[in-house]
């Protein structure tokens, strides 16, 4: 599916996750955040940078990883991205939703 975010046309799946990370820009991330009713702050972007780092190294993301990330603790993570923090943060970061078995 194509979608226009921050004047850029991007490809997303049914759930709204970017299917091509190369289309991601900070502005795109900002637009997705707005749709999720999240106001991005420096702290939010620090988390996104951490997520990008993990993604580049093909390391799986997890709540536990966040605990050890040194960026924030889990309570703060929930406060920054209320609801499903991992799902929302990865959507804003423009990477696939953390996956699992079936």
């Amino acid at each position, binding site marked *: 599916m194509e979608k226009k975010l921050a004047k850029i046309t991007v490809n997303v799946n*049914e759930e709204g996750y970017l299917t091509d990370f190369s289309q991601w820009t900070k502005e795109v991330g900002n637009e997705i955040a707005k749709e999720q009713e999240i106001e991005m702050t420096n702290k939010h972007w620090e988390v996104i940078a951490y997520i990008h780092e993990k993604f580049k190294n093909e*390391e*799986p993301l*997890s*709540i*536990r*990883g966040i605990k*050890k990330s040194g960026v924030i603790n*889990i*309570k703060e*993570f*929930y406060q920054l991205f*209320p*609801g*499903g923090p991992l*799902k929302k943060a990865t959507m804003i970061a423009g990477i696939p939703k953390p*996956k*699992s*078995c*079936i």
Partner: protein
Amino acid sequence: MKNLVILGAGTAGTMMANHLVSKLKIDTWKITIIDQYKTHYYQPGFLFLPFDIYTTKQVKKNGKKFIPKAVTYIQEKIEQIVPDKNEVLLESNKKLQYDILIIATGTKIAPEETEGMKGPMWHKNIFDFYTYEGAKALRNKFREWEGGKLVIHITEMPIKCPVAPLEFAFLADSYFKNKGIRDQVDITFVTPLDGAFTKPKATKALHYLLEEKNIKEVTDFNIERVDYKNHKIIDYADTKVEYDLLVTIPTNMGDSLLERSGLGDDLNFVPTNKATLQTIANKNIFAIGDCTNLPASKAGSVAHFEAEILTENILRYIRSEKLKEEFDGHANCFIETGNGKALLIDFNYTQEPVEGSFPFPGVGPLSLLKESRINHMGKMAFKWIYWNMLIKGVHIPFVSATMSEKGKKLN
């Protein structure tokens, strides 16, 4: 004489010993396998033990029986791997040198990772069924339990055999129905994922099972602690779920040996090349089965497919040839759905489970993603296949190490 050492004589280690003994020249290679326990457990049987479907005897055998005679078997705890010296230290301070090392130490539960889980109520009204002890204690509890809130809970991913908790919920439904007390048992399935089934096609095909069996779902639940005094599990978003009987899958971690050796990640899993099974840190160390960090299911069937490719790669490594980048994450799992029925799923790193037939395209006899009695018979036959073919490294006819797309309804 050169040394090939295998750490762990579980499903994967035992398979590798059997594969390699016929492929390596006995006069140039000495194969050694080490495990801390005498007993080899049939872990898939732990799912059935709590429901009195299998007896304790059916899930354990003497491990040595499955190790070929030409392989040296050491029963001892492994203390540390020292990659710089190509050396393995055992608990008794004994040292072993290796030219090639295969890590196959699996994964185990770590209930101590969650506050309140392994407290005074452990194995009293908080149980696991991923260990022999847990499954047996739960069986005894179920035999006398008169009903209440049964909560089946996954702490965090990844876990081995990711479908086992759901199968457990289905079997619990059947078990209490047969006992005539299903109306007194409230079953809730609590998961950190966004659904009991998380891939779209599986959700579509299978969600009816939860409704049909009246199993409630609590999703996106990331546990912070167990309030064992008030019988509640509480997550980071402050959601609370009450239980009378909690059956949890605690955090799964690799053995602490890997932490001591500096070879593990956050969860003590070994960073491993997902196509070749060579470890990222050392060229002469390979890893197979549940101990790796591969984004594949941690299952016996996966270890089986990996073993065929790893055997080939060990031979190539010895001949200084380029390793085969062939492992595709192929998994093939039966899912017990209760009442003598089961499902079968077949998938890999990129292809989600779809409908179709297996292993013969268009013929079956096993149907993918659909409940049937014959699938259940397949699941039950798996025990025989496990002891007689799988861990002995016998190729299972018609099932290839990489996933086949034939006979499947892709899109």
